[in-house]
């Protein structure tokens, strides 16, 4: 799609069962900054059935406008229904930029919508800015396993589309009571054209949500086994945190994939990331380098993880982690 656009920066608001995925708010934060550079406005696009109660949250996190499509066919996520609805809204109101979460649902949606709009889409973007001269969106993403960074542009097609993983950008400030314009859009949808129906759902027994943890104690190959990870679990519990892991630790079977941090795992940005027995390969760093404070423990003084650490401790974790646990217990009056 080419042609004239409004100077609007849109964020697709991902909701399931009337709960908004927090990455949508993170994207509203970036959208605001981009909109300022374009002298435009920020809008959220909300699709679902009977979800209008959610608009106040979207405004609170900085949207100036909310486009909403409400339809029974949108009661739960189905590709064809959601793709058509988002496509129709974008075709009618012509945003300059459309950002989507790079969650499983967001990725599913983005590829279809970009194709319907005949525009470019950049996946897993880690940096977004506006080129001062051309006003194009600069979309930067890791390529070749994070070994290089590539800045992608979409100069002649609109909207410029990008997907962004959770926790790449910080959560913007929430302002209770902020409001804006609500635009209700009618879209025709039929069960016939959607073609897919949910007939069952098996919820995960336990979902590990390390993306939102404020403290992460992460272990790598140097932990040596499950017993070692038990220690890390003990420490993370004392800190109300979660346990993260490198891919090698996951592959060794010491901990499940849901804990994996990195390019092929999760992206995290906790207040404190404690990396224990992790060498700091680029694919691991890609998932944690935005952490506020990084502390690492490694016996190898040349380990790459030290290069990005606020505090690096050269030594054996088996000596320091048990002592740290005891010290925190004492602090909390538990020991």
């Amino acid at each position, binding site marked *: 799609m080419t042609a004239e656009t409004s100077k609007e920066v849109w964020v697709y608001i991902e909701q399931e069962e009337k709960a908004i995925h927090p990455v949508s708010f993170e994207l509203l934060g970036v959208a605001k900054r981009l909109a300022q550079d374009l002298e435009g406005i920020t809008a959220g696009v909300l699709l679902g059935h009977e979800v209008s109660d959610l608009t106040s949250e979207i405004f609170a996190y900085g949207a100036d406008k909310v486009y909403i499509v409400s339809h029974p066919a949108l009661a739960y996520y189905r*590709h064809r229904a959601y793709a058509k609805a988002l496509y129709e809204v974008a075709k009618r109101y012509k945003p300059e930029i459309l950002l989507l979460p790079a969650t499983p649902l967001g990725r599913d949606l983005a590829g279809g919508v*970009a194709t319907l709009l005949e525009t470019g889409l950049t996946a897993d973007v880690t940096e977004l800015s506006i080129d001062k001269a051309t006003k194009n969106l600069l979309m930067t993403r890791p390529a070749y396993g994070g070994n290089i960074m590539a*800045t992608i542009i979409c100069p002649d097609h609109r909207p410029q589309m990008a997907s962004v993983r959770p926790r790449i950008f910080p959560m913007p400030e929430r302002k209770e009571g902020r409001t804006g314009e609500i635009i209700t859009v009618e879209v025709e949808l039929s069960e016939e054209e959607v073609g897919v129906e*949910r007939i069952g759902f098996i919820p995960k027994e336990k979902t590990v949500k390390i993306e939102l943890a404020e403290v992460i104690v992460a272990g790598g190959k140097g932990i040596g086994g499950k017993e070692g990870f038990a220690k890390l679990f003990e420490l993370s519990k004392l800190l109300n945190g979660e346990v993260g892991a490198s891919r090698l630790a996951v592959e060794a079977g010491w901990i499940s994939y849901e804990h994996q941090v990195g390019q092929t795992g999760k992206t995290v940005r906790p207040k404190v990331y404690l990396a224990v027995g992790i060498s700091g390969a680029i694919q691991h760093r890609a998932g944690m380098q935005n952490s506020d*404070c990084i502390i690492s423990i490694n016996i190898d003084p040349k380990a790459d993880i030290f290069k990005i650490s606020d505090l690096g401790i*050269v*030594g054996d974790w088996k000596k320091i982690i048990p002592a740290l646990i005891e010290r925190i217990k004492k602090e909390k009056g538990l020991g």
Partner: protein
Amino acid sequence: MLNLLVSIKQVPDTTNIRINPETGTLIREGVPAVINPYDISALALACNLKKTYGGKITVITMGPPQARLALKEAIEYFADRIILLTDRRFAGADTLATSYTLAEAIKFLEKTDRPFDLYLFGKQAIDGDTAQVGPGVAARLNVPVITYTIKIEELDLEKRKIVVQRKTERGIEILSARLPVLLTCEKEAGHPVFSPLSAILQAQKAEPEVFGADGRIPYDLNRLGLKGSPTRVHRVYTPEIKKQGKMINLDEVGVEAAVEEIIKLFKAKGVL
């Protein structure tokens, strides 16, 4: 009889990727090319379905001439027909141009032979990790898509119905769809088994049918390759590393002092 299409991509084996630190470019020498691992699952799934329901498997790929090796390997998964889309004008395609090139070829195959019941894709290609081509092709073919497929529970050819398990962030969704449908496959969707020697021998002899942008498939040349790609690489660089902070050596300062350093930071960050 099932008519199956599998779309595969040849990718560099990224576990072995090395980058020239001076130029920031990929060192291609000695990096083996493999079939994208998720596409292997799609092939194995097709192979299983063929065993159960009978039918025909067509495997397609777009890529440079050496991608024919990936297609030859597909014969080991009992592929009946292998199609290589290769042409200089296809080069430099982003996901939009790729989905166009594949979808037009698929439409051509359907017109000259018969329609497919299932289109099987990988969840994503490990070289770019975009996961965009499957949903893109589905949009162009105007068929439903189910991503992150882990299992086919049921397939009823008479009723033209399929039941699929799909992995989501919160659990496993069970979806019923009408045929035709496009599935993108997770690792669990299909497991390769050892191919019989006869299949391996056949694979060695097999050569793909080759199509280009020469007019047999009615391509709009403006929508192919770099020309048909809305995205452009603006700049490439090696990521800069955050500055190193304080370093201490456990054996020099002792455990107690090291623990205090950590505690100090925990408190400064408000997590203790």
